[in-house]
């Protein structure tokens, strides 16, 4: 008997979906025949809004483009403006920026630990890792005043210097997180349920990953070493020592191992930053924001976010407002082209599992 195809709408409100988006699935039994990503539930028109605001007013908008990891957005925009202007950034500010970016990466990975194991039905892990993420958010709150959105990095440097004793508190949190890693391994990576669910699922071929513009942990999970921090170094990453872990499995398991090993690298980067951070200025003051004009030109800057290459194409026509700010989030490719491809032939229960492993993030797909 020929099985009938059924259409399923997964999302936009569904616990397994990573945000407000929908995946329309055609299934026979519980095997997916065809998948279509539908976005548009979270479109806020940020890129249009930026065109009618002055350069300084753009900063509170950009951090809202990515909820779990807003800092690469701020850093990208700040660096784009600095490149166009030829503005120097004090070295201390560059170190502080690296610290903020790496803390954000850790926070993002902790959220991912929770999402990835939660979608496999391991519900202890999200409680623990999201709880531990709060220690990082506490640091952000002390440093910037905001827990999730920081608006801390801006053109010319950072908004304020480190509070007294902040370095000690950062290092204490790093020690704590390092100790917690073995518990995470016990709960997640050494857990046979997780291993069986993750191995051989969501496989993307290495050549295809290279051709399709896949970046970040999904690309490194295919055994290809690419990291913007190494290949196109920005800030002071070329003065820091760290490894770029790769795995060869090309599946969800390989991506999980890559992220788990990167977690340790980020902790090591933050320790080096705290040790090497010089004194001095933290801000090279910009002119009066109301009359601040940025020289005409266009620039593409990119950051290695927790999900991969996060790029900004910024065009200035020499006026006090940006001509165009176009955001390239990794999820723009991962969550549409790649997800639709990987879901073909997958099991219905693996949809959110695969989505999490790719780092699908609707706010950066629609902006």
């Amino acid at each position: 008997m020929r099985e009938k195809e059924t259409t399923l709408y997964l999302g936009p409100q569904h616990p397994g979906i990573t945000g407000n988006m929908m995946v329309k699935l055609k299934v026979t039994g519980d095997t997916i025949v065809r998948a279509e990503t539908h976005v548009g539930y979270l479109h806020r028109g940020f890129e249009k809004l930026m065109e009618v605001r002055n350069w300084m007013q753009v900063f509170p908008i950009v951090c809202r483009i990515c909820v779990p990891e807003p800092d690469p957005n701020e850093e990208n925009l700040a660096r784009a403006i600095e490149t166009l202007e030829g503005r120097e950034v004090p070295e201390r500010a560059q170190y502080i920026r690296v610290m903020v970016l790496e803390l954000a990466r850790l926070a993002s990975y902790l959220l991912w630990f929770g999402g990835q194991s939660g979608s496999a039905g391991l519900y202890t892990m999200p409680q623990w890792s999201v709880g531990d993420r709060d220690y990082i958010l506490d640091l952000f709150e002390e440093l910037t005043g905001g827990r999730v959105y920081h608006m801390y990095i801006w053109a010319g440097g950072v908004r304020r210097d480190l509070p007294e004793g902040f370095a000690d508190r950062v290092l204490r949190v790093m020690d704590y997180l390092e100790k917690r890693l073995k518990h995470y391994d016990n709960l997640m990576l050494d857990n046979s349920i997780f291993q069986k669910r993750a191995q051989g699922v969501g496989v993307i071929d290495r050549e295809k990953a290279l051709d399709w513009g896949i970046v970040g942990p999904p690309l490194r999970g295919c055994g290809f070493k690419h990291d913007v921090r190494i290949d196109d170094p920005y800030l002071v990453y070329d003065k820091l020592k760290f490894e770029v872990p790769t795995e060869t499995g090309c599946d969800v398991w390989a991506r999980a191992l890559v992220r788990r090993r990167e977690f340790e690298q980020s902790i090591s980067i933050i320790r080096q930053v705290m040790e090497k951070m010089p004194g001095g200025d933290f801000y090279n003051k910009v002119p009066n924001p109301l009359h601040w004009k940025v020289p005409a030109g266009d620039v593409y800057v990119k950051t290695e976010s927790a999900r991969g290459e996060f790029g900004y194409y910024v065009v200035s026509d020499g006026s006090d407002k940006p001509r165009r700010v176009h955001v390239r989030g990794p999820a723009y490719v991962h969550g549409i082209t790649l997800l639709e491809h990987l879901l073909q032939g997958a099991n219905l229960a693996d949809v959110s599992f695969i989505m999490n492993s790719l780092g699908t993030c609707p706010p950066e797909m629609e902006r």
Partner: protein
Amino acid sequence: MSDNIQNLQKSLSERLPQCSVKIRKHGGVELNSSKENLVGVLAHLREHFGYRHLSHISCVDWLEQNQFELVYILWNYESRIQLFVKVRLARENGSGISIRHLWPQADTYEREIAEMYGLPFDGNENPRELILEDWDAMPPMRRDFDTRAYSKEAFYDRPGREDAKDVRSVISGRSGEEIPEIAIPYTRK
């Protein structure tokens, strides 16, 4: 690195004489192509110059010159040099040309540019709608789209929010309750 960039510029000018090639002020190399040559140029860059990674496709509306500019940003994993390919298109009744057979992810970018700028792509006809649903007004990312006028027309003001009045004074006027002392300095006169 600067030697590599100069070598690349030289070999690009030799191999692709139909394009103008220049070294960019802020890093990387820029090629200006015509629409007819675009697919050939991109395919050549991909096959013979190792530009395998398509980072980004962007569209800029140059209203004053009545043109759209498409910007293709490529990355070479080996030489680590960024490459920009730019093409100018007519703003009215113009069309781009699809490259989704070269890079499948280009399809998403083309879908977005088609609906946000109203710029169709030859070879990607009737794209699935991406972000906007049943949109029949002017494509919203065009420079002459007035967001304020559109929202005035499409939505109504919530009672108490007309003329951007201070909500606190309206509410206190309605219910008779007083504005607390702490809020007075921040209340609009």
